[in-house]
Structure formats: C-alpha cells, structure tokens
C-alpha cells in the first residue's frame, strides 16, 4: 500500500543508514527485553552519558521522522488530536502522543514499535515544545521525567561562563538521576572514550561539510538528510566514525572524478528548515531540471569541536554545549549565517519550509526570506508540516517548485 517516499540517494555509503537504523531499533527492543533500562529522550540528551550509565536511549524525534516517512503521520496525529492535542502543536509531539495513547485505531507502528520507557529525559534548550510534550507524556505514562536544562541564549545575550556552569550542574544532576534510576555507577572513563570518538567524528563531519562546497555537488541534501543520522544517534561509537570515514572517502572520489548529483549541474538550491519527511522525493524534484539541493540549513557543521580541555569530561561537555547552542543566534545572526552559506556553497536559490507546527523555526522564515530577496537571491516558501502529510498538497507544491525553477532558469539565462 505505502509507496516509497524516501529520496533517491546518489551515494553508496548513505544506503547503509537504513540498515544501521533498523539494527539500532531492533537493539533497543532487545536491550529492553534483557532488562536494560530504557529512556525515551528528546534530541540533545547526550548519548555518551546514557552509554556510560548503561541506559538505552530511544530518541522520539527520530522515531517521529520514521513514522512520517512511512506516511503514517496523519494516523498517529489524529490519535493525538483526539484527546485534545491541537493541530497547532509540533507534528512530532502529536504523533508520539498519538502513539502512546492510541488503542486499536492507529496504524501499525514501524519497526515493531518502541521499547517501553522506564523514564523520560528531555532537553528543551532551543524548543519549549519539547518540555510541553515530554511533561504531558510523563503524566500520561506515569513515568519519571528529568528535565535537563541547558539554556541557549540569543545573540550574545548570555554570560557564557555562567551558562556553562549551569549546564555542568545540570549534567551532574542528570547523572545522579540516572544513578538513582538504574542503580549503576557513573563511569567517567567510558564517557571520555566516547567523547574522544565523538570529537574525531565531528572533525570528519566538518571536513564533509567543507567538501560539499565542491562543484558539481558531491553530496546533496537527498543524501545528507539520511547521512546525518549516525552522528545524531550513534554518536561516540566506532561504527559512527567509520561510517563518516567511508562517506568522506566516497565524496573525495566523486570530487576527483567530477561526479555530480545530476549530469550537468545547472543550479544549486539550499533547503532551510526541516524537510517534509513524508515526501523526501521532493528534494530530488529539481534534479529533473538540472538542479540539486546542495545544502540544508541544519546539518552544516560550522566549526571543529573544541579540543578536550579538562580531565573532567563533563566540564568539556558543558563547554561544548554552550558553543553548540550558539547557533543560530537570533535573527540577525541567522541572516548572516544564511548569507554566508549561500556565498560559500555557491547557492542560486533557497527553499524555506514554513512549518506551521514548529514555531521555533517558523518565526524567522519570513525575515530570512526577505533578507535573501533583498540581496537578489531567489527564494521559495513552502508551507507544509514536517510530519503531518494532511497539510501537503502535491499539486500546489509542485506548481510552486516549477515556477521557482522557471525563475531561476530565467535569471541564469
């Protein structure tokens, strides 16, 4: 019944990801069976710490994209809406609330469903919705919740030392929470080992980011939206590091042999915001016209990770967190960042997703679009939810894409 919605990939290495992902979810179910403690987590919960505490982390935002990409989003969203979660709230949250609350009226869950959680961990640093979502979930499931407060502050509004100190405290509290929940003792060496690998991996990620500047594009967003997965959920493992080594090698080879995504690259697009997971082939659509979505606003690694400075890995982790949270820094920072990327990656036009259920990203889009247009960079705004395919009208979206391409080609001709 469900037709394939995933994007056509160009790189061989990327094709490994679905296998890794499937394996990972099977592993979480297996861990749970064997009595390992399972934590349902939001993004930004450091998996290095989970691993060191022998806790299996299940990342709900990722599972939401899995559901969405199988076009099951609307079924689970409807189950969430039925108890009163408004269509205004985050599509991911509505889906997962639907997953938790659905009885027999929701679709079958992908990968055989999720391992049952022993507790929930949330970091709402850049997105308040996560806190609302996880605390509602904790009430519904009657499961303990730890809120890891890791502030991210806009445009130099913060005293970064104070923030780093606070994050450090919060990380230590997270560890004590996990010690209490699992009965396991924290092992700093284990964290350090994983952080070292994470650091090396992020070096490779940075290089990959740089390689993507090449013309023709050695890897577009159709690949990157998938290829980024190990770095988010297998961070700090050898498996993850090796994956990116292979990816880098493949990209280098493509660059050397001048193999692009399309035979003759005519224009390069950047995707701003979250893609529409239920129709990733939209990313490939411009390829019909000799275009490539060469970059996305999300997964560009802007700088190398700061080197290890302390004997105490938690201190390092806190410092890294402060650095990472610096992006994007308020509207003017976001504009600068975007313009810089357009320049560096030789982008001809930008597609901005107006995701009605993600206010955190939505709020800047109009101003970003305006800033780009003011500088003569063609843009296209598409208003669709990232997960709920009911907001998607294929005919409408394709007409706008066609017109956007016509505009780009008219400009270049």
């Amino acid at each position, binding site marked *: 019944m469900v037709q394939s919605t995933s994007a056509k990939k160009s790189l061989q290495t990327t094709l490994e990801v679905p296998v890794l992902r499937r394996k990972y979810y099977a592993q979480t179910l297996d861990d749970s069976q064997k009595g390992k403690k399972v934590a349902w987590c939001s993004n930004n919960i450091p998996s290095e710490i989970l691993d060191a505490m022998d806790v299996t982390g299940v990342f709900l935002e990722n599972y939401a994209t899995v559901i969405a990409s199988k076009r099951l989003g*609307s079924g689970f969203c*409807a189950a969430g*809406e*039925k*108890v009163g979660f408004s*269509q205004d709230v985050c599509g991911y949250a509505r889906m997962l609330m639907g997953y938790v609350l659905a009885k027999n009226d929701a679709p079958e869950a992908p990968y055989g469903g999720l391992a049952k959680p022993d507790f929930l961990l949330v970091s709402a640093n850049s997105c308040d919705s996560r806190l609302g979502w996880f605390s509602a979930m904790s009430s519904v499931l009657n499961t303990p919740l730890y809120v890891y407060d890791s502030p991210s502050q806009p445009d130099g509004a913060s005293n970064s030392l104070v923030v780093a100190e606070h994050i450090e405290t919060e990380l230590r509290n997270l560890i004590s929470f996990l010690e209490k929940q699992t009965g396991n003792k924290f092992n700093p060496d284990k964290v350090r080992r994983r952080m070292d690998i994470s650091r090396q991996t992020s070096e490779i990620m940075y290089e990959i980011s740089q390689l993507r500047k090449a013309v023709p594009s050695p890897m577009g967003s159709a690949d990157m939206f998938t290829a980024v997965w190990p770095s988010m959920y297998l961070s700090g493992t050898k498996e993850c590091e090796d994956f990116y080594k292979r990816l880098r090698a493949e990209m280098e080879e493509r660059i050397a042999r001048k193999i692009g995504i399309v035979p003759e690259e005519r224009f390069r697009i950047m995707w701003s915001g979250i893609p529409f997971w239920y129709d990733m082939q939209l990313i490939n659509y411009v390829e019909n016209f000799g275009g490539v979505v060469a970059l996305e606003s999300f997964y560009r690694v802007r700088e190398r990770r700061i080197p290890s400075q302390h004997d105490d890995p938690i201190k390092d982790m806190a410092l890294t967190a402060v650095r990472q949270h610096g992006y994007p820094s308020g509207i003017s920072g976001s504009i600068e960042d975007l313009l810089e990327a357009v320049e560096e990656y030789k982008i001809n036009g930008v597609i901005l997703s107006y995701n009605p259920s993600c206010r955190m990203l939505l709020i800047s889009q109009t101003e970003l679009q305006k800033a780009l247009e003011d500088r003569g960079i063609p843009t296209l705004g598409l208003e669709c939810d990232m997960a709920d395919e*009911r907001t998607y*009208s294929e*005919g*409408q979206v394709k007409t706008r894409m066609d017109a956007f391409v016509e505009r780009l080609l008219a400009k270049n001709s």
Partner: protein
Amino acid sequence: MLVCGIDVGSRNVSTTILLDGAILSNCVITSSEEGATIARKVVIEALAKTEFKFTDIECTVATGCGRNSVPFANRQSTEVVCQAKGAFHLFPDARIVINLGAESSRVMRLNSEGKVVAFTKNDKCAAGSGLFLETMSQLLAIPLESMGELSLKADGCEEVSSICAVFAESEVISHIHKGVPKQYILVGIHKAVTTKIMELLGLVGVNKDIILTGGVAKNQAIVHELEQKIGANVFVAPEPQIVGALGAALIAQETIQDRGMPSVKRL
C-alpha cells in the same frame, strides 16, 4: 396544551408543535430569508396540516444560531441543550448525542437524567461539517442524498487527506484526473468527515448509546463509518433535522408546567 419549538439553523429552519406532550406536527424549510419572516412561515406551514391556528400556541422556544431573530418566541435556548433534550426524549437511554448540522458538528454527553454534562464543537475550519459534504457533492456532481448510498457500494477507497475543505477540492479534482472511480473518492470523503467527528468524540469520551441528529445523520455512509470507528451501534433519530426543534418544544412545555406562565426572558 399547544407549544412550539423552532430551530433557526444556518441552512434550515425547522419546527415541532407539541399537543399535550405528543408531537402534533413538524416542518422543515430551507431558506436564506430573514429569521423573523421564515420562522413565522414554518410554524404556519406546520399548523396548516392541523386544526390549530398560530394564536393557539401557548409558548414558543427558539433555538439555533438564529434564535434571537424569532420575535414571537417566549424564550431562547441554545442548540446544545435543545439537541440533547430532543434526543433524550426520543431515546431515553441516550448518553452521547452527535449533532451534525450544516456548518457545525457538536457532541454532547448526557447523564442519566438527560442533562448535558459536557459538550464540544468543531473548530474554525469547515472540514468535518455538512458544508464539506455539500461542497464535495457539487464538485463530484453527485446529489447530496445519494452520496452515502453510493459510497457504501464502493469496493475501494481513495484517501482525502487535506485538512482544509477548499483544498480538499483540489485533491479530489486530482483524484478524478487520475481516473479514480468517484465512489472510491466518496469513501475517502466520508472517512475524512468521520475522522473529524471522532476527534470531537475523543474529547467528550466515547460511550455506548450514541444518538445521531442533524441533517448529515441521513447520510448512511457517515453512520456506517462512525459505527466502524466506534465499534458500537449508532442510532439515528427518525427525523434527525427536527431534534433541536423538538427539544425546544419540550422546554416550552416545561416552562408552562413549571411556572404556569410563559416567561419572557431567559436567565
């Protein structure tokens, strides 16, 4: 004792006349005329079939969105209370009343005395209302009355997923382009509407003993889909469009019984 209930809806105006507690006459008129004119007209038409005249009516209660435009009404009552009262009168076991009108859908939960304890209404978007079905009927060139029946005969379904009623049109048009049989699309439309209704039910709490009222209740496919989704029987009021007017008439009767005299103002 002769009393009258009038339901001035966005599309139809209906009336029920009770004689000593029993239904004497009903009438439904579709019109966009001003409430005052049409209300009198509908009562006179209902009385035409009987031996009574307009001035014999002892108390009139008006409900519906145009309830304040009935000059001869002795009092007004909201649709929520009237629908529930009417449905409870027809089905004394009723616990959930689903009222599917032209522009809004409501779900009421009743206690064992027939009093409303919770209700909810559809949001500001038209998907899931009678208007949506009507728009689709025009688009597919299938009469509103036969949509349900045709849909039930279909052996397949084409989803209509758009949330906005107007954009659902373009989705339906593109289904037609692709050569999808119309009855498959009809199934999708009915599924979309019932999904919306289920959301309302979710908020109020699904029970057994569910009564369906309002014009849309005549659509058998909606009834069937709802029964499938709820997993229980759904009872349709015999004349679903007059349930609100019946409730209003019952209130008119209570008003006289309680106070001996019709009171002019509510509250």
